[in-house]
Each structure stands twice: as C-alpha cells, then as structure tokens.
C-alpha cells in the first residue's frame, strides 16, 4: 500500500512539546517524538508519567503549552478534535449505553454522512473483523468485557482512520483475556497496516505488541526503541530498571575509557559499557540482565568476575534462582539452569561472571 520509503517516514511529529496543567509542574516536558507511518508505537511509563497527556494532545483534547505537533507534516494544534479523524479507544470502552452495538459502530459513519446501506455494510465488516458477527443488535451492557473492548475497537476502525490512539485499552480486562486480546491487536495491526499509538504502563504488554516503545518518566521521554534494543541497550538507569529485570551494583567509575571500568566498594573491578560517557570518579550503577550472569564452576577461569557468597536457592520450575550476597551491595538473584542443581549451599563462596558487553554503567 505504501512504498518502503514512505513507510518509514514520520506520520506524527512531536516537536519540543511542553504541557503543564497547573503552571508549576510539567505533565510533559520537551517531548520530541516521531511516530512512523504504519508502526505500532507504545507509550510506556509509570503512572503519572505523561502518557495520557501526550495522547490527548495528539487527539486534540488537550492543547500543548508550547511546541508543535505535526501530522503528515502539517501542524494540527489548531484543528479541533472532531476534525482530526483519528480512531480512539478508551480504557473504559466509552461505548454509548443508549445505542446498540450496531448503533455504536455506525456512529462515526453516520456523523460523516455515509448512506445507510453503506454504513451497515461497513459496520458489519468492522464487527466481523473483530469477530463479533451477529451481536449487532445487543446493547453494550449485554456484552462481556472482552466483547465490549472489541466493539470499541471496531468503532474506532470502521471509518478507516490513518491513526488509531488507544489509552490502556486492555487495562480493565483480566490477565488471560488481556493476553488473548494482545494477540488479536497485533494481528489486526498486521492486517490493516494502520498506525497504532498505544498507551500502557505494563511493560510486558508494550514489549509484546509494539514495533517500537517510547518510555516515559516524569513527563520526559527516556528512550524510543524496538523492544529488543530497549531490553538489551537501555539508554539510562530508569529504562534499565523499568523495562525487564535488572541486577544492579553500585560503584565508582575508575576508568572512563573503552571499555570502562567500575570499582566496587567491596574491592574488585569490572569492565562495562560507559553508556552515558560519565567521567572517571563519578558514582555509577552497573546494570546487567540476570540471565547474562554466569555462575563459574569451581576452579574455572573467566574475565570480568566478581566474588560473592551463596545465600539461598528458590526453585521456579523452569529455572532456579540463587540469591547471592556481594560486599556492600543489595543481594542479587542469579538464574541457574536446572542442570546446575544442586545449587551451592548457604555460605559457599562463588564467582559470578558478568560479561563486559552486557554490563552497562549508568551515571
């Protein structure tokens, strides 16, 4: 449908966008973000980080304090929300309770003056797309949560908007249904090729669904990247801690070179990646994904190791988690394959390998 060149250009551009509700604190600060045509982009962040505000500014329900939002290269700050032509799905569905399912799905077509026959055809098509054929004459309160969510989706898609905005659309569903709907959303996005902008505070959901994830904290954009890059190369301390599990060790940067070296308080020096180009002597946090840590067999040698003491092991079915104490650090959990059983008993000195290219140092 679109040429490869166009499929990567920006559909939406946020440019230095600020927003404050109360005049003293920023809900969104200095936001620069490109939403690419046809991608599934998720805004991820803890509660109050400005995700909804960002979405609402794009939808037109909030106005940026300063900065510019471009859609297809044109500023849209002056366009009223009903003329922006974006599909929108709300967390609580916001299905009109006085209309039937069919009435809800027809609504956007009706206000666009689509003739009745055509309207019904397209509504039926949209309902079929979310696998809700035959429920058109029900009232929203006669549907289950998952069905309501699908009606909301059909209603947001039926007028074929170039961009669909969703604010925690699966937040009200239970875990199983949520996972099921995630698969369907993903599939729907693949089939339609429409640009989806999705908001969630659930990092698992963000990683599962998205082509790219934008991580927010305190109103500021931390990092925009593919799920893999986000996980493997977090840009800062916050992203490393927020997305996925991370083992963190506090230390001081001893050498800011390439590779950089961090001195741990209990003695011992580790090599790692100096992500933020910190200067030598600054206190840093060394972060690594637990599954990258290796437990060395007694007598084996490896680079970049640290001495620790085994505390206890927890059996988790597919792996065992060994808690280890390091001098001057919080205890850390190291996942061990089942083959490594039995785990070292309490008090055993062990050596842990932290590969240098996976150990990331944050100022």
């Amino acid at each position, binding site marked *: 449908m679109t040429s490869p060149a166009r499929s990567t250009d920006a559909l939406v551009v946020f440019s230095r966008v600020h927003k404050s509700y109360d005049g003293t604190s920023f809900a969104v600060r200095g936001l620069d973000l490109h939403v690419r045509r046809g991608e599934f982009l998720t805004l991820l962040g803890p509660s109050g980080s400005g995700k909804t505000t960002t979405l609402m500014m794009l939808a037109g*329900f909030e106005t940026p304090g300063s900065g510019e939002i471009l859609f297809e290269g044109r500023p849209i700050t002056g366009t009223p929300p009903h003329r922006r032509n974006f599909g*929108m799905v*709300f967390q*609580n569905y916001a299905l009109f309770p006085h209309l039937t399912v069919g009435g809800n799905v027809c*609504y956007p077509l009706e206000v666009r003056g689509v003739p009745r026959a055509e309207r019904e055809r397209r509504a039926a098509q949209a309902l079929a797309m979310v696998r809700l054929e035959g429920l058109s004459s029900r009232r929203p309160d006669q549907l289950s949560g998952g069905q309501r969510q699908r009606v909301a989706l059909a*209603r947001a898609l039926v007028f074929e908007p170039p961009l669909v*905005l969703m604010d925690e659309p699966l937040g009200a569903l239970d875990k199983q249904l949520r996972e099921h709907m995630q698969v369907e959303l993903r599939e729907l996005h693949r089939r339609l090729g429409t640009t989806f902008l999705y908001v969630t505070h659930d990092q698992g959901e963000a990683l599962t669904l998205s082509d790219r994830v934008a991580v927010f904290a305190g109103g500021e954009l931390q990092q925009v990247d593919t799920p893999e890059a986000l996980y493997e190369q977090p840009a800062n301390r916050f992203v490393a801690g927020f997305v996925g599990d991370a083992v963190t060790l506090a230390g001081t940067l001893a050498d800011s070179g390439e590779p950089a070296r961090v001195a741990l308080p209990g003695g011992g020096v580790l090599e790692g990646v100096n992500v933020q180009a910190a200067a030598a002597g600054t206190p840093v946090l060394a972060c690594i994904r637990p599954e990258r840590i290796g437990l060395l067999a007694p007598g084996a040698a490896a680079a970049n190791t640290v001495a620790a003491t085994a505390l206890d092991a927890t059996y988790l079915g597919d792996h065992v988690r060994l808690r280890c104490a390091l001098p001057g650090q919080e205890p850390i959990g190291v996942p061990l394959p089942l083959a490594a059983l039995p785990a070292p008993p309490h008090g055993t000195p062990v050596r842990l390998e932290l590969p240098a290219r996976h150990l990331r140092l944050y100022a």
Partner: protein
Amino acid sequence: MEAGALREALRRESRARTLRALALAAPLALFLLLTFLVPIGALLVRAVDNPEVARALPRTVEALRGWRGEAAPPEPAFAALAGDLSAIDDQAEAGALARRLNSDASGARSLVMATWRALRAPASEGNAAVQAAPPAAGARAPLLAIDPRWGEPRFWEVIARNGARWTPDYLLAAVDLRRDAGGAIAAMPPEQTVFRAILWRTLGIAAAVTLGCLLLGYPLAWWLATLPARTASRVLILVLVPFWTSILVRVAGWIVLLQSGGLVNQGLLAAGLVEAPLALLFNRTGVIVAMVHILLPFMILPLYSVMRAVPPDYLRAAVSLGSHPLQAFRRTVVPLTWPGIGTGCLLVFILALGYYVTPALVGGPSDQMLSYSVAQYANVNLNWGMACALGTVLLAVTLVLYGLYRRLGRAELAP
C-alpha cells in the same frame, strides 16, 4: 426433629426481624397517615360531601322526589318544609342550611333564616297558622305569607338538587359543568365558565416555568457535573441558598428588582436598551421570573445527580468519532440524562401547579392560578365543597402527569 427445630428457630428469627422492621417504620407510617393520607381523604370527601339539606330537610326532600322543576312544587312539599324547618332546634344548623342553599341560589340565606325564625317564634301568627292548618288545607299560603319568595321555583330546585347526601356538583362546577334540571350533565352557560380558563392558565404558567427552569438549569447542572467533586459541592450550596430563604423574602426581592423604578429597569434604561421602563411586575412576566427562581433547585438537583453518573469519556468518544462537540452533547449526554430531565420537569411542574403566594404577590388579577381560587373559596366564601373540588382537580392533574411520566419513563428505560 433436628430439621424441625431449625425451621422453628429460623421462623422465630424472621418474625423478630419483621417485627423490628415494622416497629422502625411505624412512626413514619403513622405520620404519613395523619399528615398526608387523612388530609387527602378528607379533601376528596369534602369535594362531594353535601350533608346540610339531607340532614335538615328530610321530609321536604322526600316530598320533592319526582318533581322536575317544570311546574310549581307539589303541595305536600310546603307542609313538609314547614315541618322540617320548625324541627330545627339549633341556630347553627339553620345557619348551615341557609349558607348551603345560598351558595347555589342567592337570597336563600335570608329567606331560610327569616322563615325559620318566624316558624320558631312561639306565638307568632305564621307559626300558629302553618301549624294549625290541617295538611289538606295546605301550608302553601302561610309559607308565602312569611315570605313570598317561597313562590319562586328556584329555591325549591336547589333543595331538590341537594337532597342527596353526596353531590357531584362541586366537581362538575370545578370543570365548568353542571347538572341541568333533568339531572343530565351539561356545560355551564358561557358567562359562568371560569375554572377551565384558570386551569389552562395554571397549566400554561406551570409549563412556562418548567421550560424556564430546564433552559436555565440544564447548562448549569452540566457545568456543575464537570467540576471536580469538591468545587461542585461548594457551588451546589449556592444553588441551594434559595431553599434557606423565606419565600416571602425572595418575592419581596423580586419586587424590588422588577418594579418600574427597579434595578432591572434602571439597568435597561441606562444601557439604552429600552425607552420607557418595562412592565415586569404584576403581570405574567413577574410571576414566571419569580417562580423560575424559586423552583430552579428542583430542576438542578435531579439533573446534576444524573449527569454526575455520565462519564465525560462519552463526550470525548463522540467527538473523537467525528461529532462536533454540540452534536456530541446532543447525541450522548442528552439521551443519557432523559431520566433527570423527566424527574426535574415533573417535580417543577407539579410544584408549580400548586403555587399561590408568588402569583398572589407579583401577579396581576389575570395571573392567578387555581390555588388562588381554592384559597378564595376556603377563606372568603367559606365554600369548602368548591375549595375541595378544585383541590381534587389539581390532584387529578398531578396524578395523570405522574402516570404519564411513569409510562414514558418505562418506555425510555426499557432495553
């Protein structure tokens, strides 16, 4: 055995619970009975109650049975009347009869009282003559001697018509109907019709006030509903302030504002919007303005409570789907607030129907509502039958409206 004992224990427990519930509800039930049901019952009874003639003149009524009023009353009726009247011992009872007959035929009061006194006077000539006369000789002449007006059939008609213990006349009169001489229901002669016009006026004013309250209250209630809860409850207090002010004080306030030298007119004159002061007081405008002000809270409160339950997301959803904000409001918020609109309008309309003080104080003679006539009959004419009949009409209108509301409401809420 075991099961039986358990069942017995459960029964005892549930009986105790029922008794407790009854005991808790009893004071209110009693209160409602005494202050609500009994007065309404009394009102309904009073509207058809007609004891005076039946009690005081039983023989006369009997003698007039079958008489249709075409000719002179039958001879025995005169004797029966003389007998009945002389049998009345109590001045108060005679007075009640006289008042009752007078309300249907003017002049009957003096006629009845004079005749009664003449008949009761121990040695009076007429008395002796009437009582001495043998029934066959007829009591007609002696009665006519006491007062020649007994020769007019209209007084006899009134007696004959009110011979029954209960009468539909008040209720008929309240809707400008009457019974003709033959007892058939007919329209009042045009020069005597008054209540239908007043009823229509009452309904018209109530409707105008309801509309005014809706137009002013709906946007305000919506604004309140979109405020944060704390702010909203503070603003709501302002809405309720009128509740805490005496109705007379508020009406006096309106008089000050609306009179020809009042604030409103001064403002309009100063702004150059009018040449001469507008007549805002002692006419329909004044009545409607003052009533809207007084009744506004009854519209705002039900609307507000319904609107609070409408999440703002519906509006946003409709706008995001392409509706202009006004269209979105009309197509989502308005349908969802029908119950509040219905309740508010019903409340205001029903309350407005019974308004008395406000029109009496800020209205002109042609702005008085039905309750003004009720008060007039109750306080000035002492015609409780008419007062209660008009009250019954108001009650009937209210019940019909409520029935309509229930029916529409059910249709609206049905899935």
